């Protein structure tokens, strides 16, 4: 085999490994948290505090609870998993990779509209005839929305059933929809980009958040520290500031 041939072969053999380098480093001072998208702001503010206290790097993977729970159960690298529903948390529990599961926050559904509320929506009843959006029935925020609409006898049809709550929020902040059903914490995260209308009786259909350490964690103590922080007084304060309610 020629020299060029040999170097090419070597390159072909080494290339696939190069991509894996990041995974094998691991070790001290790094924490990976898989968390439901709606926790983005609350968790990021907690991370600042955690990093300065413990001299660690916190990395987040935010996404749909269903996706993250499945990834965790498949052994995806991660130390902590936080989901926006109990059903998702069941997946890593069944796979035997979840530690003790703690409920740490709740979230209530609200109506958000663009700041000037062009369709003048002040209640669920006024959704009829407006261009409004909610989550699809397949995801937790959609199941909650469906239950609340049913409780209130609302039959208005949405313009779109979004894949997750942030996509729902996005349709409102971009001005495409006159209203959307999202969590109170999403409304807080959107700040001045939306106006919020509370839904009477929505607290009957609370969404609960669960957190656990994962068996694949390379630093179980550090993972537990994060769970402790989330349930501590400081953690509760951050969650409350971000629009969550507390159990």
């Amino acid at each position: 085999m020629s020299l060029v041939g040999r170097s090419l072969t070597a390159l072909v053999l080494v290339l696939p490994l190069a991509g894996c380098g990041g995974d094998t480093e691991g070790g001290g001072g790094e924490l990976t948290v898989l968390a439901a998208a709606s926790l983005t702001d609350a968790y990021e503010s907690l991370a600042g505090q955690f990093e300065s206290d413990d001299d660690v790097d916190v990395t987040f993977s935010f996404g749909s609870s269903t996706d993250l729970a499945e990834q965790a159960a498949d052994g995806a690298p991660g130390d902590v998993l936080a989901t926006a529903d109990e059903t998702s948390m069941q997946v890593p529990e069944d796979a035997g990779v979840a530690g003790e599961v703690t409920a740490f926050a709740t979230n209530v559904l609200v109506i958000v509209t663009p700041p000037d509320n062009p369709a003048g929506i002040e209640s669920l009843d006024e959704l009829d005839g407006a261009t409004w959006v909610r989550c699809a029935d397949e995801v937790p925020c959609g199941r909650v929305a469906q239950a609340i609409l049913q409780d209130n006898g609302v039959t208005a049809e949405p313009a779109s059933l979004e894949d997750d709550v942030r996509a729902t929020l996005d349709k409102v902040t971009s001005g495409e929809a006159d209203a959307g059903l999202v969590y109170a914490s999403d409304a807080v995260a959107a700040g001045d980009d939306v106006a919020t209308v509370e839904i009477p009786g929505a607290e009957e259909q609370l969404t609960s958040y669960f957190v656990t350490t994962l068996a694949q964690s390379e630093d179980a103590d550090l993972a537990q520290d994060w769970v402790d922080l989330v349930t501590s007084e400081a953690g509760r304060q951050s969650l409350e500031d971000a629009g969550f309610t507390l159990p």
Partner: protein
Amino acid sequence: MIVSTAVKDPLGRPPVLLMAPAVLATLLLVVPLVAMVAATDWAGLPEQLRSEPLREALWLSLLTSTVAMLLCLVLGLPLAWLLARVDFRARGVVRALVTVPLVLPPVVAGVALRTAFGRSGVLGEPLLELTGFGLPFTTWGVVLAHVFVSMPFVVIAIEGALRSADPEYDAAAATLGASRWTTFRRVTVPLAMPGIIAGMVLGWARSLGEFGATITFNGNYPGTTQTMPTLIYVTRQSDQDAALALSLVMLVVSIVVLLALRDRWLGTP
């Protein structure tokens, strides 16, 4: 992959350095699809296939892809002709611009469409005010997203076909007194027809698989904007088996399209 060993190739045996990656490439493309077929719950398949959402989404996908393909032809063929046959100063720039959506992440395409044609978009807002019609959340919005992502494929494929057809025939037609329009109709298009058809099928297939721009611009509602890829994406959130069954349907549709084209692509020795 069949390598003929019966007849000795005068050029020598294919080198391992080329064969190994070629086999690897084939496996890389085939294994995931085989795995998906193997993972499908066949017992539950008939029930999945009869489901209302599937029929609605499949019909909507076929409808929007076909309408988008026709629009791509009506608008894209003249553009391809312009790029291939007419010498104008900005030609390079125009060609570069129309290929941009080809490399754009679909979600960016969706955001761009929304900025232009959304209910509060640059063109969308006046349209809504004048006519009361907004493109987002409608089937026309889906078609628009499809046209946006498919048109570059159609234009590039047809332009290639027009370029490989000898312009001397056009010139000959002109010397015989044909106007440029007649030449286009009677000479240019018939000569490039196989390439035009390939371009249309390519565009149609791209529309059929379109997901990112559609869901960003139009959202997801059964019967109106929920195409097959969107349905699969949403279903995956709650029912993996159903998502696999739906994926299988898409796979079958894709293979049928490829078979229809086998003379062009699969038939080459």
